[in-house]
């Protein structure tokens, strides 16, 4: 039931995740943060097996921090994504695979903005837009139709609201709110969460 979505805009990458922390039939928290900071210009959203998400996310985060202290500079987004993929792949055929899906969004001075889709089998792709979870089945079609690579931040937020509107109509599970972040050349920015009342119904 967890959902995450990301897409590139005009010199920024937006990443949104649902904010529900669920265990069986109980909702633990409605404002759970599923995105972690990997560097000054890179974030990663992690969804999947509870426990694995925190363990894997923090493990990657601290190792990337160690890289920064050892070498004096941060890894590029491309490097971080590939490092994460390799760790996931090594764990896959070992004592304890991590059942996590992630999206890595980052900005590099040399490469510009990038979004990397990674699933629990450690397959990774650099893509303009992506989503994880049951919600992805609905949202990817919306993005196929309405995504443009040169969107402004306002247009991106509108597109997000419309994606959530589609989920409200067609997805059996209710997602009360999503946490939104975006990355650009100035760093990581957090937007206020988009709640159910703001979901828009797309009219063709």
């Amino acid at each position, binding site marked *: 039931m967890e959902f995450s979505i990301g897409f590139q805009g005009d010199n920024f990458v937006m990443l949104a995740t649902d904010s529900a922390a669920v265990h069986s039939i109980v909702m633990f928290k409605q404002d759970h943060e599923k995105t972690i900071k990997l560097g000054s210009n890179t974030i990663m959203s992690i969804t999947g097996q509870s426990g694995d998400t925190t363990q894997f996310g*923090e*493990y990657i985060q*601290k*190792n990337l*921090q*160690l890289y920064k*202290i*050892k070498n004096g500079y941060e890894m590029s987004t491309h490097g971080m994504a590939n490092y994460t993929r390799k760790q996931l792949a090594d764990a896959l055929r070992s004592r304890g695979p991590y059942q996590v899906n992630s999206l890595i969004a980052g900005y590099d001075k040399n490469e510009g903005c990038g979004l990397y889709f990674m699933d629990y089998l450690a397959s990774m792709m650099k893509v303009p837009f992506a989503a994880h979870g049951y919600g992805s089945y609905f949202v990817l079609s919306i993005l196929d139709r309405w995504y443009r690579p040169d969107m402004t931040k306002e247009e991106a937020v509108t597109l997000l609201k419309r994606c959530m509107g589609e989920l409200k109509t067609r997805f059996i599970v209710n997602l009360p709110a999503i946490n939104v972040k975006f990355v650009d050349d100035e760093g990581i920015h957090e937007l206020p969460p988009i709640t159910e009342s703001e979901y828009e119904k797309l009219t063709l």
Partner: protein
Amino acid sequence: MSRYDRAITVFSPDGHLFQVEYAQEAVKKGSTAVGVRGNDIVVLGIEKKSVPKLQEERTVRKICMIDDHVCMAFAGLTADARIIVNRARLECQSHRLTVEDPVTIEYITRYIATVKQRYTQSNGRRPFGLSALVVGFDYDGTPHLYQTDPSGTYHAWKANAIGRSAKTVRDFLEQNYNEEVASNEDDTIKLTVKALLEVVQSGSKSMEIAVMRRKGSLKILEASEVDKIVAVIEKEKAVEAEKKQKKGKSS
């Protein structure tokens, strides 16, 4: 006597661990490092050895950042230091991962000292030939300066020096360190530079100064900034000397 310095694990009849003492001799051969703890700032200063003409100067780094809030300078074997620094960096992140808190300076110093001690008690390995000055700020804001040596002991200091001519520098610090100096950031930096100037040629070419403030991370002073401080010190010295001369003449 020579029979007892071959293997590290053997005590001599009069209770010495010769390998550890020889390691301390190696430290005394290294270039000087000075550390001063102020109330809101900690300063590290190191003597820069002259490099051969064709060598890139900036690749010789004796002041290393261990974490955002900890840094260390060392005197002794550079290669050994690299190993210790890598282990300390790893431990800092490991600590953050397991307890979600940055290390305290005492914790990481104790860790470094424990690593060093292990090598004084196992067969077939020699001790690390370096002493380290570890400085930084704890999470609650208190500044610290610790010194470790090859035997694996560590102590907290207000100001200390290691390496060549350490005794001279330490004596100078003993005479000139006081609460007034510690409470003023510029004075703390000036004291470090003054202490180094006791054993080093004047100028930014032969020393490197690094400072760390409570909320910031390690900042290595530019050569121009160091030159400015040295110029101020030289002027003060000249004024002092003139005063003494005048006194001498009048009396």
